C-alpha cells in the first residue's frame, strides 16, 4: 500500500507539472497580450512606453525562461504580481480562500446528506410514486443551470424577505457562517446532491440484486437490517469515488454561484482576473484549482482504500 501511495504522489506531481505547462502556454498563444491592454487603457501613445511595460513585466524574455521564473517563484511561495492591482498575487488569493472553502465544504455536506438518504429511499421503494417523484427531482437538479437556480433563489429572497443577502463582513461564530452561506451552498450543492442521489440509487439497486442480500434474508434478518446494515455499506463504495470527481465539478459550479450571490471568493475572482487579462493571477488561480482537485482525488482514493477491505487486505 505504501508503494501505491508513493506512486500516486509522484503521478500527482507530474500531473500538476503538466497542468502548469499547459496553462502557461495557453495564456500566451494568442497575441494581443496584457501589454497592449495596459498600454491602450493608460492612453499612452509612445511605443517606447509599451516596450518599457514589456520589459518591466519580463515579457521580452524567451518563453521557457518566463515559465521557469514563474515555476521557481511558485515553489518558493512567490506567485508574482497581479497585473491589475500590482499587489502580490498571494496577497490577493489567500484572503479569498476561506470563504470559498467554507462554501464548498457546506455544499458537499448538503449534497451528501440530501443525496444519500434520498437515493436509498428511492431504491428501496423502487417503482413507487415516491421513487418516480424523486427521480424527476434529481433529473431536474441535473438539468438546471446552477446559476439559474441561484437567480431563482434570489428572486424568492426578494419576494419573501424583500432583500438580497449580502456578503461583506466576516461573521463572528461558526453558526453565523453556516447561516450566511446556507443558501448559496444549497444552490451550488443541489446539482451534486442530484448526482449523488442517482448514483446511490443505482448502486443500491445493483447491490440488492446480489447473492449476499439473499443470504442475509435467509438468516432471518429484518428488511431494515438487510438494507441498512448489509446492503448500504456496499452501495456507498462507488459513491465515495464519485465525491472526488464531483468536487471538480463543484469548483466549476462555485464560479457561477459566487458570481450570482456576489460572494468575494476565489472562484469569482478567477472570472474577474480573466476579464482583466490579469495573466499572473489567472495562472496561479488555475494552478490552485488544479492542486485542490488533484489533492481531493488523492484523499478520496485513500479513503476508498481504507474502507474497502478487499483492497486493504489484498493477499
Amino acid at each position, binding site marked *: 500500500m505504501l508503494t501505491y501511495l508513493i506512486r500516486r504522489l509522484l503521478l500527482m506531481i507530474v500531473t500538476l507539472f503538466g*497542468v502548469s505547462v499547459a496553462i502557461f502556454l495557453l495564456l500566451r498563444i494568442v497575441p494581443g497580450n496584457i501589454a497592449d491592454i495596459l498600454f491602450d487603457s493608460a492612453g499612452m501613445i509612445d511605443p517606447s512606453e509599451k516596450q518599457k511595460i514589456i520589459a518591466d513585466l519580463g515579457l521580452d524574455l524567451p518563453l521557457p525562461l518566463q515559465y521557469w521564473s514563474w515555476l521557481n517563484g511558485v515553489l518558493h511561495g512567490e506567485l508574482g504580481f497581479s497585473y491589475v492591482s500590482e499587489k502580490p498575487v498571494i496577497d490577493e488569493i489567500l484572503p479569498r480562500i476561506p470563504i470559498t472553502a467554507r462554501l464548498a465544504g457546506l455544499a458537499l455536506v448538503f449534497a451528501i446528506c440530501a443525496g444519500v438518504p434520498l437515493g436509498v429511499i428511492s431504491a428501496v421503494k423502487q417503482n413507487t410514486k415516491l421513487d418516480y417523484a424523486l427521480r424527476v427531482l434529481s433529473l431536474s437538479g441535473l438539468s438546471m*443551470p446552477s*446559476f*439559474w437556480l441561484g437567480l431563482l433563489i434570489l428572486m424568492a429572497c426578494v419576494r419573501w424577505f424583500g432583500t438580497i443577502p449580502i456578503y461583506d463582513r466576516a461573521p463572528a461564530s461558526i453558526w453565523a457562517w453556516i447561516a450566511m452561506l446556507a443558501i448559496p451552498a444549497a444552490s451550488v450543492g443541489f446539482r451534486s446532491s442530484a448526482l449523488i442521489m442517482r448514483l446511490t440509487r443505482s448502486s443500491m439497486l445493483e447491490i440488492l440484486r446480489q447473492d449476499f442480500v439473499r443470504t442475509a434474508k435467509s438468516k432471518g434478518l429484518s428488511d431494515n437490517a438487510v438494507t441498512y446494515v448489509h446492503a448500504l455499506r456496499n452501495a456507498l463504495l462507488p459513491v465515495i469515488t464519485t465525491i472526488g470527481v464531483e468536487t*471538480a465539478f463543484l469548483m*466549476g459550479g462555485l*464560479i457561477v454561484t459566487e458570481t450570482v450571490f456576489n460572494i468575494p471568493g476565489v472562484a469569482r475572482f478567477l*472570472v474577474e482576473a480573466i476579464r482583466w487579462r490579469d495573466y499572473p493571477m489567472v495562472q496561479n488561480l488555475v494552478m490552485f484549482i*488544479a492542486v485542490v*482537485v488533484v489533492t481531493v482525488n488523492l484523499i478520496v482514493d485513500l479513503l476508498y482504500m481504507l474502507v474497502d477491505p478487499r483492497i486493504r487486505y489484498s493477499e
Partner: protein
Amino acid sequence: MSATVPHSFWNNVSYNARRYPLGVAGGIIMIVFVLAAIFASAVAPLDPFNTNAKASLAAPGPVYLFGADMMGRDVLSRLIHGARVSLAVALGATIIGSGIGCAVGLACGYIGGWFDLLVQRVTEVMQALPLLVMALVITASLGPSLRNTIIAIAIPLIPSVARVIRSNVLSLREMPYVEAAKATGMSEWRIAIIHVLPNTLAPLIVLATAQLGSTILTEASLSFLGLGVPEPYPSWGRMLSESAAEYVRTAPWLVIYPGLAISLVVFGSNLLGDALRDALDPRQRD
C-alpha cells in the same frame, strides 16, 4: 404462446417506445427544440433583434408573449433564435469533442505502447481541471467568439470520451468472440471494423447524448459570465446575465423563461440519454 420477436424496424421502434416512455418524451422535447431552432425565423413571432425603447421591460402579454427585455426585444423570439445558437454550439461541440475523443480512444486501444501512455498522461492533466474552468481559460486565451466557444467546450470533452472508448476497445479485444475471429484467420482490420467498431458505437452514442446536456449547460454558463457567445448572437445564457440581480425584482420573466428553456432542453436530452443507456445496456434486457 411464445413471445413474438419484433422484426421490422418500425416494430422495433414501437416496441422500444413502449418500454421507455420517458425516453420518448425526452426525444420529443429535443425534436421540438431542434425544429424550433431550424425554423426559427418562421416560428418566432417577432424580430429578436428589433429594439423598441417604448416596450422596455414589458410584462408578458398578447404582443410579447413572454415579455420584453430592457431594450424592448421580445423574449420569446429571442428564446427561439437563441435555441439555434445554443443548440448549434452544443451539438457542434459534442460532435467535435466526441469524434476526436473516439478517434483518440480507438488509437490508444489499438496502437498502445508509448502513444497510449502519453495520451493517458495528457488525459490526466486535462481532467485535473473542472470542465468550466478549462473552457473559461480556453475562451480567455482565444478570445470570445462563436467559433472559439465551440472549441472551448469541445476540448474538455475529449479526455472523458477517449477514456471510455479506450477501455471499451481494450475489453472488446479480449472478448472470446474476437479471439475466435482471430483464430479463424480474420485480419485485425476486419475484426476492428466488423466486431469492435459496432460495439463501441453504442456506448459512444450514450456518452454523446449524456455529454450534450453538459455542453448546453457549459455554454450557458460561459455566456452567463460574459465569456461565451458574444453579441449579436442571442444566447440563453447571456440573456440571463443581462438580466441578473438587477431585474430580479422588476421583471422576473427575464429570469424565468431563458432558464426554463435551458433546463427543458437538458432535461429532454437527459431523459433520452437515460433511456438509450438502459436500452443499449445488455445487462438490462430481461
